[in-house]
């Protein structure tokens, strides 16, 4: 509380006396600029019903909510902002440590001729985020913002440098570790005057990141400073593009890696070719012992320092997206992905009157090709792994194809087929039937039909099926969504686990949503049973945990 008051006093003092700091020009310019204030508000509340069939836990408060408002004020080169968050009490599915209300995010910043300073909280990413990504996914309860200082300097000749220092957010507090980092990037076609018109374009970047955390372990002598670095490049020539990042991390015994003293490394490579009507991307990565947090004893999404996304398609259809999604195994994996998008020309016999869009995607993830070392009483390196060599154990596999075609002014069709495998010895899903062992294979098919009754009234229907011999067996989903542009929508959905080998779990998950949108305001009310996952309805996607009851969402931007 006191801290926030000091912060506000600090900001106003800085604004008042800043003429000495910046010289008259910046201030005079800022004085001419109007003060602009904007932000947003978001509230998700739910009234919970007990539902023993889906093992929904009882909620003694009956009603829970997550809410926040951002306010950002800018005047010329100056910006200040804060976020008030309130969880009284926090929604089911989020970490209960969020409980409470307060202002965990506030900052002040200014730009002065290429120099940009932020004090307070900030989000930041170095390269692809293999070492540092401070970001927020509010619907997931993920916010690892840094509280400290950031300096960015754009030298104006293709060189950009930024430095950060601070501690990461931990619910309404901060984590124990301190981060210090510097990142530099050079765009050679801006830097070298002779390269200005060059069709070959090259960007190089590198960063160094170090974390400090006191040795808190009575049994092990732990490194208190852990250093890491990475290098990256992006090269482009006409329609081709190649980008890569390599990162190395010093030994960092942690809960995630079983407190071993092994170094970590990661490599990501991605190549693309695209022209109008055709695009392809091929990617591969090697991740070995790259879990990175500012508290070595933490788990889940808490105090994560880096970002290691899965090299798989991010599906949107409910059964494909919510039942068996895959996440990178930060302790080690080798993964590959291919993705093609193309358009069949309009006014041809194969493309139809309006053309046809086709998207094909395939991905596979494997364990490391590693050899276990029996050295936990000596060097504690744990294992050795061959670089960029997939191990024998496959973790995940997905092949999918999507076809979209507009038949006439009233009818649009979209179909998706997907075949997947997930190794549950690794992912360890535990649905209504409890945990299961071994590999799960599934086929998923979706038919998405949009009927435009007239320019403003439409009905969209989704028919989805998932067929599997493992875990919870077969599923079917039906969604009917009626929209009356620009303000109203109503949707009903039922998911039916008709093929569940446990007869009592052959359940329906009905859910209805009704909502109103005007400009940047959106209000929706939902009622029914929900499974966990990415949930898209009425034009917006967000992530929700499983539950039963009535929910209300209010969103407003100003």
């Amino acid at each position: 509380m006191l801290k926030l008051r000091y912060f506000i006093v600090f900001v106003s003092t800085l604004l008042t006396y800043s003429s000495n700091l910046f010289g008259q020009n910046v201030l005079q310019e800022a004085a001419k600029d109007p003060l602009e204030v904007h932000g947003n508000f978001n509230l998700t509340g739910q009234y919970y019903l007990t539902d023993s069939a889906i093992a929904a836990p009882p909620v003694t408060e009956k009603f829970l909510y997550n809410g926040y408002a951002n306010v950002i004020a800018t005047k010329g080169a100056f910006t200040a902002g804060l976020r008030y968050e309130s969880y009284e009490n926090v929604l089911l599915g989020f970490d209960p440590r969020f409980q409470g209300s307060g202002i965990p995010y506030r900052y002040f910043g200014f730009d002065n001729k290429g120099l940009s300073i932020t004090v307070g909280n900030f989000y930041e990413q170095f390269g692809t985020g293999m070492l540092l990504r401070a970001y927020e996914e509010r619907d997931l309860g993920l916010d690892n913002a840094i509280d400290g200082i950031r300096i960015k300097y754009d030298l104006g000749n293709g060189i950009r440098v930024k430095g950060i220092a601070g501690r990461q957010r931990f619910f309404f507090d901060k984590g124990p570790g301190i981060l210090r980092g510097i990142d530099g990037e050079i765009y050679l076609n801006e830097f070298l005057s002779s390269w200005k018109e060059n069709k070959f374009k090259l960007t190089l970047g590198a960063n160094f990141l170090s974390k400090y955390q006191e040795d808190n372990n009575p049994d092990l002598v732990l490194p208190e400073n852990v250093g890491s670095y990475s290098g990256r490049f992006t090269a482009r020539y006409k329609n081709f593009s190649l980008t890569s990042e390599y990162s190395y991390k010093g030994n960092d015994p942690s809960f995630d890696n079983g407190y071993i003293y092994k170094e970590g490394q990661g490599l990501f490579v991605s190549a693309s070719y695209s022209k109008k009507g055709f695009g392809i991307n091929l990617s591969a990565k090697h991740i070995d012992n790259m879990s990175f947090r500012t508290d070595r004893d933490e788990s889940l999404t808490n105090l994560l320092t880096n970002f290691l996304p899965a090299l798989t398609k991010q599906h949107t259809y409910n059964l494909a997206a919510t039942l068996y999604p895959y996440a990178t195994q930060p302790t080690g994996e080798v993964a590959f992905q291919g993705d093609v998008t193309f358009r069949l020309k309009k006014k041809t016999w194969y493309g139809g009157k309006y053309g046809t869009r086709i998207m094909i995607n395939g991905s596979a993830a494997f364990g490391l090709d590693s050899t276990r070392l029996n050295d936990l009483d000596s060097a504690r390196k744990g294992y050795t792994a061959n670089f960029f060599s997939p191990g024998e154990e496959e973790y995940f596999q997905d092949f999918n194809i999507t076809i979209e075609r507009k038949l006439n002014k009233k009818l649009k069709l979209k179909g998706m087929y997907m075949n997947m495998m997930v190794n549950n010895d690794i992912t360890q899903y535990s649905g209504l039937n409890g945990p299961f062992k071994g590999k799960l294979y599934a086929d998923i098919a979706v038919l998405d039909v949009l009927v435009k009754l007239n320019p403003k009234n439409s009905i969209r229907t989704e028919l989805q099926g998932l067929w599997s011999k493992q875990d919870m067996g077969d599923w079917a989903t039906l969604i009917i969504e009626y929209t009356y542009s620009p303000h109203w929508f109503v949707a009903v959905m039922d998911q039916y686990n008709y093929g569940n080998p446990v007869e009592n779990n052959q359940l329906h998950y009905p859910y209805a949503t009704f909502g109103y949108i005007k400009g940047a305001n959106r209000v929706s009310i939902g009622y029914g049973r929900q499974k966990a996952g990415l949930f898209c309805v009425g034009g917006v996607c967000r992530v929700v945990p499983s539950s039963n009851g009535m929910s209300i969402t209010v969103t407003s931007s100003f």
Partner: protein
Amino acid sequence: MKKLILIAFAAVTALTTVGQTRTIPSIELQDIDGNSFNTSEILNEGKPILINFWATWCSPCKRELNNIAEVYDDWVEETGVVVYAISIDDARNAPKVKPYVDGVAWDYTVLLDVNSDFRRQMGVVNVPHSFLVDKNGKIVHQHTSYQEGDEIELYEKIKKLSKGETLD
């Protein structure tokens, strides 16, 4: 006490901004060809601008931009509007944005906002979210989500802006 400060902060800022307008903040992004692009360069020589936040994993977003793509030539011809499509795809999907955009043959200027810096500064909660900018560079309208047919209302507003009229 915390709440008091917040209320005071909100009240003061609200009072000083009555009748104020809003412009596009300056944020460093990249275009899909890898060139750096500052959002203060979002300009259209006095013609209207549509800024649309989207992502490759968001079906309604792609529906909206695909529907606008079908009529985009007519829109440009009649009003001179230009569309900036801001992808909020993170490092997981950012490499797939250009192949997708080229694959479906959009003519928009597409920018990558991989850590949601621009999204945050613009106050966007969910995608899709669109902003209309008038000839003076002022944000005069915003809309969240997409429903089939929403582009009709949007285009009415764009036409008004291109004639120099104000929106109600």
